């Protein structure tokens, strides 16, 4: 990472600042952008975690409370609702992960780079 980048953030990060002439607090604009970025990441993370939990606990509840439904046969009696639902939850996990990684690679990393001072 560049010295420039390190300096900009080091100023705001370092807890006891060794240089009294350098401002100890980050710039307000920078703080606002960080807060915004953090909120966006938090919202997406919470939404995706919630979807995963609904999918998984939905599957568990289906198996626990609605055994006949889960045992209903489909596709020429060759598969059950429960098997399809379980496979869907397994496939859901990497799909949700991919959505997050795509967002983070495209937007989050760029914002982090900006906040760190353009490079790094």
């Amino acid at each position, binding site marked *: 990472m560049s010295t420039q980048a390190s300096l900009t953030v080091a100023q705001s990060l370092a807890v006891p600042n060794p240089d009294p002439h350098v401002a100890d607090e980050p710039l307000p604009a920078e703080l606002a952008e*960080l807060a915004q970025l953090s909120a966006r990441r938090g919202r997406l993370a919470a939404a995706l975690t919630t979807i995963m939990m609904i*999918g998984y606990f939905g599957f568990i509840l289906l*198996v626990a409370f609605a055994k006949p439904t889960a045992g209903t046969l489909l596709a020429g*009696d060759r598969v059950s609702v429960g098997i399809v639902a*379980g496979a869907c939850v397994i496939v859901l996990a*990497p799909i949700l992960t991919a959505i997050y990684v795509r967002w983070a690679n495209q937007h989050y990393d760029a914002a982090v780079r900006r906040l760190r001072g353009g490079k790094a």
Partner: protein
Amino acid sequence: MSTILSTFAAGTGADAAKPSSTLGQPNVTAIGFFLLFVSITLAITYWAARRTRSTREYFAAGGQLSSLQNGFALAGDYMSAASFLGIAGLVSMSGFDGLIYSVGWLVGWPVITFLIAEPLRNLGKFTFADVLAYRLRQRPVRIAAASGTLTVVIFYLIAQMVGAGGLIHLMFGLSYKIAVLIVGGVMLLYVLFGGMIATTWVQIIKAVLLLMGATLLAGLVLSRFGWNPLELFAAARDRYGSAVLAPGKLVSSPLEAISLGIALMFGTAGLPHILMRFYTVPDAATARRSVALATSIIGAFYLVTFILGFGASVLVGRETINSVAAGGNMAAPLLAEALGGTGFLGFISAVAFATILAVVAGLTLSGSAALSHDLWNHVVCKGQSPEHEQLRIAKIATVVLAMLAIGLGILFEGQNVAFMVGLAFAIAASANFPALLLSMAWKNFTTRGAVASMVTGTVSALVLILLSPTVWVDLLHNSSAVVPLKNPGIITVPLSFIVGIVVSLLALEQSARDYAAAHRRMHLGPVGEAHIAKH
């Protein structure tokens, strides 16, 4: 979980195979593949030992792994013999019910991706206690977090060692004690000399072998059914009735099922040996990509084990599987023998052996980090222990943990230790996960809140499992359980969140400013440190 794990452990007590299978007789291919695996991994360990001079290399492979390497290593660290042989066995014996575990063992991974991996990488150095210690008081939180880590590691190690001894006895015909000694001894060589670099490569190789073996086996199964899983399910239905495709006896009580689900989902995100792996990559972005890769690998693997289970029930038959080992643990190896002959059986057996080695190595290393980095350096020496001393303590800790694993493995021979994996997940979910999440997400979290949450999580999980049907009735032979739940997650996880929050609110700590710094670093990474390191 108890069912699959009890079948996993119960099966290991059974004796030599039926004449129809060569399983359990010394198998030249199996021994050949195993020796090849051990020779290659020991050669890697020798190479890794020359690159392991600092604690950062010992605990975090120098932080220089790629997302591809760490993705496979995470998968190799996580996919245990219990999930490979156990799920395939459970599906072969009871059909649909095995899928409940396939799903449960995967769903914690997205939680790691969304909530844990990146902040953990940015805030810590070697252990998850680093994250708590970043803005809370070092010593109390490190003592509590290290206790949680060591409890999880020891219970998980016992379950792995006892399972390993039994499985290797079944597959290779070696005596139980010899098998435990070999697993403990080889693991010790990896971790003691090669640290995280050797452990990583053992896990990568194991993950590749396991995926190859399982995929090849599933391919052989599907080739018999026109490459259509539906035809396989139909064949199972024709042979065992349509109940095989429907939920059976495993989920008896909805409360129990949800409780198990909570422990699996949040326990995965609190396993110290998994969390530790995020320090082996250079930055948060790499951590994110590696956990995404691991999620895909593990998801694909669990789908494949499902095919293996149904394949074994149709192509080998439940009677044969059950006659070799009660509970169905040998379903996958028997399927390999039926479809690919003794050679393939040997390969799969060696892969199962490698699987156990990779998991116990990861566990031991994370225990060693808790002892050396958290307890010795930060608690005893207040962060002043010199580098070479930390490394020496880490190696002593590794030897002690390996001895403990071997000793406990031998001590618990023939015991049903199935509940110990459940216990490890329950403690990880209730002691580690809530404190970790709150410390990253909640500004007003305090040192007292963290310690109270971790202690509550550990103690409540231990006590409730002790009083549960699994231990109180099955192991201690009391007539009825004090607590009817087999898995305490539904009580202990919310409880330790509540305790952490309430105790924090009771006495506020002056940590607002520290949170601002932690919050920055959580997103931007250790920029300041890199800057300082240049000078």
